[in-house]
């Protein structure tokens, strides 16, 4: 993964897909990267949408934070790249 490649957008762009799963807006939530410990809003992640699903990477170390794939009638969600998400429950 070259740090010079510009084939990503912001975590914002995953908001629609994530709204199918979560009751609150995840893009404004703070999450911690399980690799480098950076704490940022999910909206600030680098989002790659060219693959069959979407892949969000840490904007600092490019570690995979989240993968989301739609397969027929199922959604596969892999969140192992984040130690936690801190959500606004108000």
């Amino acid at each position, binding site marked *: 993964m070259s740090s010079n490649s510009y084939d990503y957008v912001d975590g*914002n762009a995953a*908001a629609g897909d994530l709204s199918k799963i979560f009751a609150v807006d995840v893009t404004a939530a703070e999450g911690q990267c399980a690799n480098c410990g950076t704490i940022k809003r999910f*909206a600030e992640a680098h989002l790659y*949408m060219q693959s069959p699903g979407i892949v969000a990477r840490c904007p600092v170390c490019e570690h995979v934070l989240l993968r989301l794939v739609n397969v027929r009638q199922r959604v596969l969600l892999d969140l192992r790249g984040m130690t936690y998400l801190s959500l606004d429950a108000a």
Partner: protein
Amino acid sequence: MWRVGTVVALHDETATARTITFEVPDWPGHFGGQHVDVRVTAPDGYSTVRSYSIASAPSSDGRVELTVERLPSGEVSPYLTQELALGDRLELRGPIGGWFVWRTQQTEPIQLIAGGSGIVPLMSMIRTRASTGSAARFQLLYSVREPGAVFYRDELQALSDKDRSLIVTYVYTRVAPANSPRPPGRIDADLIANTTWPSKLAPTCYVCGPTPFVESVAGFLTASGNGPNKIRTERFGPTGDRK
């Protein structure tokens, strides 16, 4: 949750961009900067989803405006900008996104920086500010290829004429009009230093445009003393029809 929006107005902003006004009866309202997903379904059942920024301020009449730039190789934007007709119905999901938004409670100076059609969510913030009578000081730095590519020019002129707390600066990258104070060129460190709020005022900065544009502008803002936590970005890449 998908809602059905009916096209009630169409307006060409430039030769390649069109504003579409939808009437969505149960629209819940939105903040400036949010976007919607649009689902387009072909007669054979094939459907695809694209995300577009909302251009309008929230209104009580259930109307939502999107401005869509036509991408020559796009799958959806040529349809939305050339074929969509009054009375057509599309499925919309939103409003979406809670981070790249300006809320009327924010009273700090606001710096908006747009690259091309990245103006759309920033225009929603400017219109929201105007319609709510907010006194927050806004500055817009708007980078476009050439004069004919400017969206909302007359409205921006009218808004900034009657309100000195809204300052609009254009940057032309390829062709500048005769009265432009600077030759064509990209936004650089000097321009950021001279035409944006000083970082000591602690402005919140919103940057929207193609990914390379956002990368370089965010770098200039950081270099001129703005904290990374005061810079919010929205990039659009080559993948979809975003914006």
